[in-house]
């Protein structure tokens, strides 16, 4: 029962933190929409072209804008020592990584998930394709959260080159992009592709606590 209370209080704290920094998340979403505008201006407002490459654009920009918020993932809590306090409060590093990943999914990715329908209207994506995009992003965004957790915990002690964290996320998200965009173009293969995505999710979710926990421990040891 105690562990349940600790989890609830962990999310209470995350909620308070994210509420006070809500404009950061909103800025991320604005970045997403402004990049859509710029994409449309750069390829011209031709309806056919836009709707044929629309899904790819949405996915790319979602990936780019969710890597923007990576810096906040562990960095703040690491610098003010809250990570250590959570650990001393009886949560192992791997468990902290899992909780943080869910928190990132809830407070950063869900707002993106909600803004997808508006993006689809802007990009002329048909309604039946919207369902595929939505379901693929629901799984894909969780994979992105796990990857973000791994890469940002790796780069906690890296003061010189933070962009490396985004590059790591992007290089590992290549298969996700391939399969998620494939879902829309190969509609008859929907079930098999969604199973592949789900398989990737399980692999990444299994690696995440191990890799992030080890990196968190390392950074706290040598800080």
């Amino acid at each position, binding site marked *: 029962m105690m562990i349940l209370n600790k989890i609830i209080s962990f999310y209470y704290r995350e909620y308070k933190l994210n509420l006070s920094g809500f404009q950061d998340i909103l800025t991320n979403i604005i970045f997403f929409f402004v990049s859509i505008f710029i994409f449309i201006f750069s390829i011209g407002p031709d309806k056919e072209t836009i709707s044929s490459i629309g899904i790819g654009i949405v996915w790319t920009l979602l990936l780019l804008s969710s890597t923007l918020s990576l810096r906040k993932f562990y960095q703040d809590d690491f610098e003010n020592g809250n990570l250590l306090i959570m650990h001393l409060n009886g949560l192992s590093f791997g468990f902290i990584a899992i909780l943080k990943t869910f928190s990132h999914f809830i407070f950063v990715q869900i707002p993106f998930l909600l803004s997808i329908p508006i993006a689809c209207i802007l990009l002329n994506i048909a309604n039946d394709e919207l369902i595929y995009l939505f379901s693929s992003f629901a799984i894909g965004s969780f994979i992105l959260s796990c990857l973000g957790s*791994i890469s940002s915990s*790796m780069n906690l*002690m890296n003061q010189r080159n933070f962009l490396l964290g985004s*590059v790591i996320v992007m*290089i590992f998200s290549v*298969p996700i992009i391939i399969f998620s965009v494939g879902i829309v173009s190969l509609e008859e293969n929907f079930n098999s592709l969604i199973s592949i995505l789900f398989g990737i999710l399980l692999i990444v979710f299994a690696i995440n606590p191990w890799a992030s926990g*080890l990196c968190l421990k*390392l950074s706290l040891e040598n800080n």
Partner: protein
Amino acid sequence: MKFLVNPSKFNKVADYIFLPVLISSIILFSIGLMFAFYLSPDDYQQGSTVRIMYVHVPSAWLALLTYAIMTLYSIAGLAFKIPFGFIINTAVAPIGAVFTLMCIISGSLWGKPMWGTWWVWDARLTSVAILFIIYLIIIFMNLSFENRIVREKVVAIFVLVGSINLPIVKFSVDWWNTLHQPATISKLSKPSIDPSMMIPLIVMTFAFIMVGLAIAILRIKTEIISRKSNLS
């Protein structure tokens, strides 16, 4: 076999074998290049361009082999707390990156006359490109961390996570329908390549291995020295 995990023993063995390795790499290279350019036949379809294979295939194999070695040593370093694993990781990554780059460049030189394009986005080519970027990230990580203990362990974790790409590179030609041809040489079945091409290929592979080994010995020795004197 202790020299594979112990720096001082490695130094002794390396001093012993460095010169033979260097000489044999020169001999093997001259024999291999002679075979590759003059003594092997033209392909009946591809003509003379098939000779690119004698660079392309060995470098591709070695790119994969280097990463596999790094993966093994990362496991050794992280799980069994053998610091020599981290030394190997730092020393060997640039060698693997160069082999991958050679593989990509020779491949695209071969692809232009055969496929009519420098680059196609098929599974094999893409996964090798990703392998190259992973190598680059490893090198950059080695450069950008200030604390050595954190750096080597984080790099080892990254190598392990990135090793997912290795089977994808290897089996991409079987799993997907690619433009790149599937493997012609495999252990389980009789190779579908003529001995007159097989022999120079094997000679060139050993030449590449010897060159890689010579550079690796030099790099590992400098890495050991710099660690002893706490330079990095």
